[in-house]
């Protein structure tokens, strides 16, 4: 039996053929998405910060896409888990670079992970943004393919010294655990304090794992300090605080927030922690960028890590728009045109993208701080949060 091809059938067939031929174009439109790599710790020691950093980046990406994307292209985050493990992180970075062909990897957290991933990135001309604090990271031969938003030891010591001067202390003794940061921190503190009339009455580096620091405490107290800078970790700072209480020391005690955490505050006897001042890097809580972040994330107080993640993706998207092309080298060559420029200050990626479209020069100022980078990729300034233990709980002194 003969099946005549009706005009209608022919039309339907032709339409189908046209659609089929057009399919690659549709696929190309999908490909036109701008892929950005994310490598945060989702498991392991960084599992508390990593997922929150990822969420902060996703929130910014959603905002940017809703406002039309970057150079008309929607952005897509390709997410891998660093497992807070250098070996797993290197494998994930290779996948992001070789398979997904991302121009940037955002989010390495642990210094050991960043140290392992950074060479993979700079060798394949991929940009890397990180929150690792070890001084050595920006001193790697990264050829400009790395920026970090976390303050290094040098900046931390500078800010601590500024606080000590504001606090009105006149005689400071520095007790440090034997660690790579001990000597550089002592040196920087002394450099800042001495010209301002604050005497560093002495310093010593103590051995970790001692059951008592009585003799060290005696040595420090002999110099009659009115502030003790305790640069150690939780176990030894706990012992030091006990021995200081026993020795009747009544001056100020100053330490890093990781050496006297919320948990150790609950464990240690109240009298020995009373009045201790702790410090930690902080988000720039008064910045419009931070206010926008609070609204975007819908949480009351995003911390430094969420704020740094907000800034990475904002800086990366703005730089790509500025450069006009999404490559690691373009990011390297143009990032400071966004962060270190004296253009119109913008606080969100969406505002910045609109300003760039209008042909303006912009300066992105972030939620974690002003985001101005040195030639080797360190930030030159950020905020710090100073807390004081009052009646067994932390009370905010200032964010400065």
């Amino acid at each position: 039996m003969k099946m005549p091809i009706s005009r209608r059938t022919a039309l339907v067939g032709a339409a189908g053929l046209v659609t089929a031929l057009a399919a690659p174009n549709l696929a190309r439109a999908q490909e036109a998405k701008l892929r950005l790599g994310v490598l945060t710790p989702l498991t392991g020691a960084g599992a508390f910060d990593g997922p929150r950093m990822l969420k902060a980046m996703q929130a910014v990406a959603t905002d940017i896409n809703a406002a039309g994307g970057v150079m008309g292209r929607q952005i897509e985050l390709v997410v891998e888990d660093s497992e807070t493990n250098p070996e797993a992180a290197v494998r994930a970075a290779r996948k992001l670079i070789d398979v997904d062909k991302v121009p940037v990897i955002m989010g390495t957290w642990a210094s050991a992970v960043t140290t392992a991933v950074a060479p993979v990135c700079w060798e394949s001309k991929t940009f890397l943004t990180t929150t690792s604090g070890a001084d050595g990271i920006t001193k790697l031969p990264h050829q400009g393919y790395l920026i970090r938003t976390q303050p290094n030891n040098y900046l931390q010591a500078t800010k601590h010294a500024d606080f000590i001067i504001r606090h009105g202390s006149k005689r400071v003794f520095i007790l440090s655990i034997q660690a790579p940061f001990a000597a550089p921190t002592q040196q920087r503190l002394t450099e800042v304090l001495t010209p301002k009339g604050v005497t560093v009455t002495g310093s010593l580096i103590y051995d970790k794992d001692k059951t008592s620091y009585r003799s060290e405490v005696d040595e420090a107290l002999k110099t009659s300090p009115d502030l003790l800078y305790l640069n150690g970790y939780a176990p030894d700072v706990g012992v030091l605080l006990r021995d200081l209480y026993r020795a009747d020391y009544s001056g100020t005690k100053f330490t890093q927030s990781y050496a006297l955490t919320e948990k150790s505050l609950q464990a240690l006897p109240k009298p020995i922690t009373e009045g201790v001042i702790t410090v930690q890097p902080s988000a720039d809580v008064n910045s419009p960028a931070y206010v926008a972040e609070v609204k975007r994330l819908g949480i009351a107080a995003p911390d430094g890590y969420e704020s740094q993640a907000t800034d990475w993706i904002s800086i990366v998207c703005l730089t790509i728009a500025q450069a006009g092309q999404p490559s690691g080298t373009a990011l390297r060559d143009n990032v400071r045109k966004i962060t270190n420029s004296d253009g119109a200050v913008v606080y969100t990626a969406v505002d910045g993208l609109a300003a760039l479209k209008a042909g303006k020069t912009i300066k992105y100022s972030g939620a974690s701080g002003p985001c101005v980078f040195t030639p080797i990729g360190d930030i030159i300034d950020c905020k710090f949060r100073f807390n004081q233990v009052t009646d067994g709980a932390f009370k905010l002194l200032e964010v400065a």
Partner: protein
Amino acid sequence: MAASLADVPQLLLNGIMSGAVLAIPAIGLTAIYAVLRFPNFAVASHATVGAFAGYLANVSMGWTLVPAALVAFLAAGVVGVASDWVVLRPLRPAGLITATIASVALTIALENLVRLGFGNALRDYNLPIFRDWRFGGLRVGPQQLEDLAIAVTAVVVLFGFLRFTRLGKAMRAVADNPMLAGIKGIDAGLIAVLVNFIAMGLAGLGGMLIGLDTSIDPLTGFRVLLAVFAAAVVGGLGSIPGAVVGALAVGVAEELSLLVLPPDLRTMVGFVAILLVLTLRPRGLLGARAY
């Protein structure tokens, strides 16, 4: 500014106090060596076990210092016997090295079990903290004196046990000459259980005493392992009075080193002490007789 000669009395006092606390686990290490002839590095984790057992008694049950310290002793002693029975006893016939390495593995395993149960956070006993007493330019903490009293009591009781009881004499006999002791009908297996109980119990007590002065976490015992080993070697590995003398010597030497060394090199004193003793007097200060 380093310590000066005027500080010597205070340094001596600090050294004796820290030495007295170190002596307790050092006796444990040396006692096991005397009877079973291998250095059992699992004293480190047993010190941690004792510290946490004492913590549970003190904080969860609300017991005071002395009963909590007894719990620390008993719990570490029981764990010591059990872990030796399961892990080390079957390996001892394979020789000194095997048993020693197994004891290192055992200490890591036990430490991680504690970590599994309690986490890594620092914990603290529920005991009041006092200002130091000062007299004649010296200062000493009431807690230190309590530690000292507990340490001295433990040593006196142990010496009484070894000197006057049948079991104590049997232990010394096995330490002195296992074959002769066997011929006389002393059960070496029973003595092994006993020495493990006492030695690991003492390690646990020592762990708690260390924790009283600091905070406790799963690494509490491991942190002092080197000093404990140095004390036992300096006194003469296998000699119980030697462990006391060695601990006091290492404690005092570590403090006096501050006269000439920066504080971050204090740990070196333990190594140097081991090196000197092994080079100049390998039997240790008091020789190798158990008692």
